[in-house]
């Protein structure tokens, strides 16, 4: 069974952390992953930097620009991850945009993911129907789970369709907007979390966008299986470097 599905069966709320590969420094990728696991994180999204990240807010854009300036590429990321499964056992997901993967070759990219031990992909600009019609068979061949996004504007019919072709979890975008930290969620989000929670979907949901601290993590995981933090963690790395990752994670988990 895929590591993502194993993790989803655990009887706890899951914390997933996003960071940009090659940030703050080019060779920080592996160290950040190892420290996140040691700090008690359940799952990691490794951001493959892109020059034009449409779904991301200023924090992740800036980290992507920096990572590219540092020299990060798809090829280099795979080479950094070559031995990652010797030290890390939690699920690893690559989050990136479709264009760099197309240039690598979708099948070659998926094969490489399997080789280094990646469990899934999140590709915000890959349309559901394109995945379904062109890429699903390739993803499945290499044992990769593709994670789809839903938003407060996604219709119930479309959520049901996405649920039907998903295997793993659904990435529930908390509110209309790009990625970026918020300090708390309002009634609109609570209502949305409740609405999705009550749909009895076959795939658990993990909430992302706008989660930054213990309060928002708790709110987001009241109904959902877990939550993803990205921008707030990138800000922590920008400010404090890579030495105090456990402080950040403990803060979110309320330890």
């Amino acid at each position, binding site marked *: 069974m895929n590591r993502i599905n194993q993790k989803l069966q655990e009887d706890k709320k899951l914390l997933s952390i996003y960071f940009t590969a090659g940030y703050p420094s080019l060779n920080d990728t592996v160290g950040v992953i190892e420290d996140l696991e040691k700090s008690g994180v359940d799952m990691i999204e490794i951001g493959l930097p*892109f*020059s*034009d*990240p*449409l*779904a991301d*807010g*200023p924090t992740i*854009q*800036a980290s992507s*620009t920096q990572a*590219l300036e540092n020299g990060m*590429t*798809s*090829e280099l990321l795979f080479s950094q991850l070559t031995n990652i499964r010797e030290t890390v056992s939690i699920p690893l997901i690559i989050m990136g*945009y*479709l*264009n*760099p*993967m*197309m*240039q*690598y070759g979708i099948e070659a990219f998926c094969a490489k993911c399997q080789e280094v031990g990646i469990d899934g992909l999140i590709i*915000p*600009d*890959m*349309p*559901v129907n*394109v995945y379904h019609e062109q890429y699903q068979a390739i993803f499945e061949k290499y044992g990769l789970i593709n994670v*789809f*996004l*839903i*938003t407060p*504007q*996604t*219709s119930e019919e*479309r959520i049901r369709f996405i649920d039907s072709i998903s295997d793993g979890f659904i990435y529930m*975008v908390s509110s*209309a*907007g*790009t990625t970026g930290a918020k300090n708390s969620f309002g009634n609109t989000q609570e209502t949305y979390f409740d609405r999705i929670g009550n749909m009895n979907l076959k795939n658990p949901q993990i909430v992302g966008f706008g989660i930054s601290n213990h309060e928002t993590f708790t709110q987001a995981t009241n109904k959902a299986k877990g939550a993803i933090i990205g921008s707030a963690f990138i800000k922590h790395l920008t400010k404090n470097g890579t030495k105090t990752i456990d402080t950040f994670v403990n803060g979110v988990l309320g330890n």
Partner: protein
Amino acid sequence: MKKTYHVNEKGYYGTFGGAYIPEMLYPNVEELRQKYLEIMYEDSFQKEFKQLLKDYVGRPSPLFFAERLSAKYNTKIYLKREDLNHTGAHKVNNTIGQILMAKRLGKTRIIAETGAGQHGVATATVCALMGMECIVYMGEIDIARQAPNVARMKMLGAEVRAAMSGSRTLKDATNEAIRDWISNPVNTHYIIGSVVGPHPYPDMVARFQAVISEEMEWQLQEKEGRSYPDHVIACVGGGSNAAGAFYQYLDDERVNLIAVEAAGKGIHSGESAATSVLGEDGIIHGSRTLLMQTKDGQITEPYSISAGLDYPGVGPMHAHLYASKRAEFISITDDEAMTAGLELSQLEGIIPAIETSHALAVFDTRKFKEDEIVVLNLSGRGDKDLNTYIDYFKL
């Protein structure tokens, strides 16, 4: 089935096009996809659109026989005078169409991207006309180099927001406009300025610009006794004026289509915007098309002396016209374009936009037969480029 170069029912031109957008944009783009054709072809829409094109934009734009230019190149050259439109270029055909679309979709807030500022001005203009809130995203670097157009937009009541990310030019302004739309999914319509972006934008913008070739048909019928030319020439950045000039002739293989791209300082100089030659298949701004990128798939910054041609992608219709060889693609350098712009000024008394000068330079590099009818889409006037002309020619 008859071969067609128009968009198919899934939103593709051959393998190009589609809607590669984050889920956050899906409801907006889907709403537009479902409704755009129905709305555009309602009688009341067509009536209002045509009335505004006539009384506000000043259409039809003349089809002018350029006698001295024709004599010099020994062929029959007609100029389609889009430069005479209100706001000085073809851009306004699209913004008039889209603002009417936005009203019918019940939207109250308009966003747009702009590079040189021409589309920003055309959008700010129609927003003023309709009393709509208007926010234009423009790269920080472009704001600095296009001050007069920034002032025009402000005078027209628009808010100009600086795109500070990435290379801080047109592609980043487009990214910021898309991010704004993600954050304002209900009340906002995004007026894209060219035949780019996710389906249905390329097709919708092409249909609004198609008025150019619709007029050409009856104008040629009047002047030449036939509704089609042998060649249509247009410059291509994103490709909206070319899409409009080609539109009625896309499936008429009697007509040779010539798309002119900016070679900048030379195609292989590293400073170029010749997307068809230098681009690779990929995804930009929600569309699968040819785009300039590194081998790792990072989108690169193109260069041209003309701010309207330095887009790293090209509309999916044009990518398909290139790949299928339906259109002839020619690249013109900065120097060739500037020379052609000066020549038109002095032979015909028309100062063209530098974008258009690229199309004009084709006459110096490619021969046409004496009895052939060539229509060149004179997409914009050169007022906005005077400083560049002055610097270049030391006027």
